[in-house]
């Protein structure tokens, strides 16, 4: 249904989605680096979530099911990450690599915060087991409907032509420039933000009791869950483009292929 509507659009309608490849941010080599980082990140979050779901604390909840869902997902993604970090594989299957990266991002920034927030909530508030599962499933359904809503909205604005190169709504040059400068300020920022987080931790420790701190944690991590869904919606369109158009892919020398070098859907029709 949605795919059929997207199939009607032209290559030029997706111009703004190409900026992430054109600016050299999402080259296959960069994506390999992020897959390797992702393995470390997922292991770290695996430790974190085990600490949150500590089975010796509040054993009345059946947390093992949720924990094993998260661990199986993480395990599969780590195996896929290792496979798609091999140059011979990712040069030939660029779409597969982008799918693994997007799912890894979804796991790291959305599914892990969701489970961590649920476990921390259980540690802070006493809920009946039924209420806990209703909350868990309700939150998940809300997240999925949010994802679908964003994708539908994106499809509509794609059909309106908001993502064309000459679109008035988004300035193409500006977006491209912003994409190019994404990496440049990150190192300084991370160092500054670490200090900021330490001060924040001290303030929260000093002025709030552990319970209120936990509640802030739960709220922020549920917000992160929705943010991850928002990012994933854009990734879905990006994956679609990469699968359909050759101009979103890189050739053997690592250069992006020029505009109009092939459209899978059109070729099938003609």
């Amino acid at each position, binding site marked *: 249904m949605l795919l059929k509507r997207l199939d009607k659009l032209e290559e030029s309608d997706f111009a*703004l*989605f190409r900026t*992430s490849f054109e600016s050299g*941010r*999402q080259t296959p080599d*960069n*994506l390999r*680096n*992020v897959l390797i*980082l*992702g393995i*470390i*990140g997922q292991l*770290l*979050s695996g*430790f*974190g*979530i*085990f*600490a*949150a779901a*500590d089975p*010796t*604390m509040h054993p009345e909840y059946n947390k093992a099911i949720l924990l094993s869902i998260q661990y199986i997902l993480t395990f599969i993604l780590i195996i896929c990450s290792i496979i798609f970090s091999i140059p011979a594989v990712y040069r030939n299957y660029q779409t597969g690599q982008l799918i693994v*990266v*997007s799912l890894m*991002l979804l796991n790291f*920034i959305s599914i892990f915060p969701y489970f961590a927030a649920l476990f921390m909530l259980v*540690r802070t508030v006493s809920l009946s087991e039924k209420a806990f599962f209703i909350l868990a499933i309700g939150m998940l359904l809300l997240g999925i409907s949010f994802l679908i809503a964003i994708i539908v909205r994106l499809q509509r604005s794609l059909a309106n032509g*908001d993502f064309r190169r000459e679109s008035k709504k*988004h300035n193409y040059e500006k*977006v491209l420039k*912003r*994409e190019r400068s*994404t*990496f440049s300020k*990150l190192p300084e*920022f*991370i*160092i500054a*933000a*670490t200090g*900021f*987080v*330490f001060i924040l*931790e*001290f303030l929260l*420790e000093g002025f709030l*009791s*552990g*319970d209120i*701190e936990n509640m802030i944690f739960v709220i922020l991590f549920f*917000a*992160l869950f929705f*943010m991850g869904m928002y*990012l994933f919606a*854009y*990734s879905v*369109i*990006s994956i679609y483009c990469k699968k359909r158009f050759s101009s979103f892919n890189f050739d053997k020398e690592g250069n992006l292929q020029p505009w109009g070098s092939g459209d899978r859907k059109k070729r099938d029709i003609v």
Partner: protein
Amino acid sequence: MSDSIGGGLGYYSNLNEAQAQVLMGKDAHIYAAEDTAIDIALEQATMAVAGGIVTTGAAALTGVAAVGAEAVTATVIFGWGLGKLLHIEFGKTKTSASGWVKKGFRKIKGWFF
């Protein structure tokens, strides 16, 4: 509340921890300084990993939120939250993940000094 998340944060709590291990004076301060360095390094690593993953993994965003802005928000929340999770004491031995790292560090240090 019994399972509220205890310290492990900052120099002061590390110093208390050291004094609880019957270390005095200079030794206690060295112990606390090492622990603080490990805390900072773990925090830094978490944030670098989160920042790197979001800035590279996210597709081109348009409109209100650029990738950079998303990464900034996600990194700060993540750095704080995961740091908190890594300081939770779990299991039968009541040791946190960062506690395990500190223990490992002491073991490796023991081979040289």
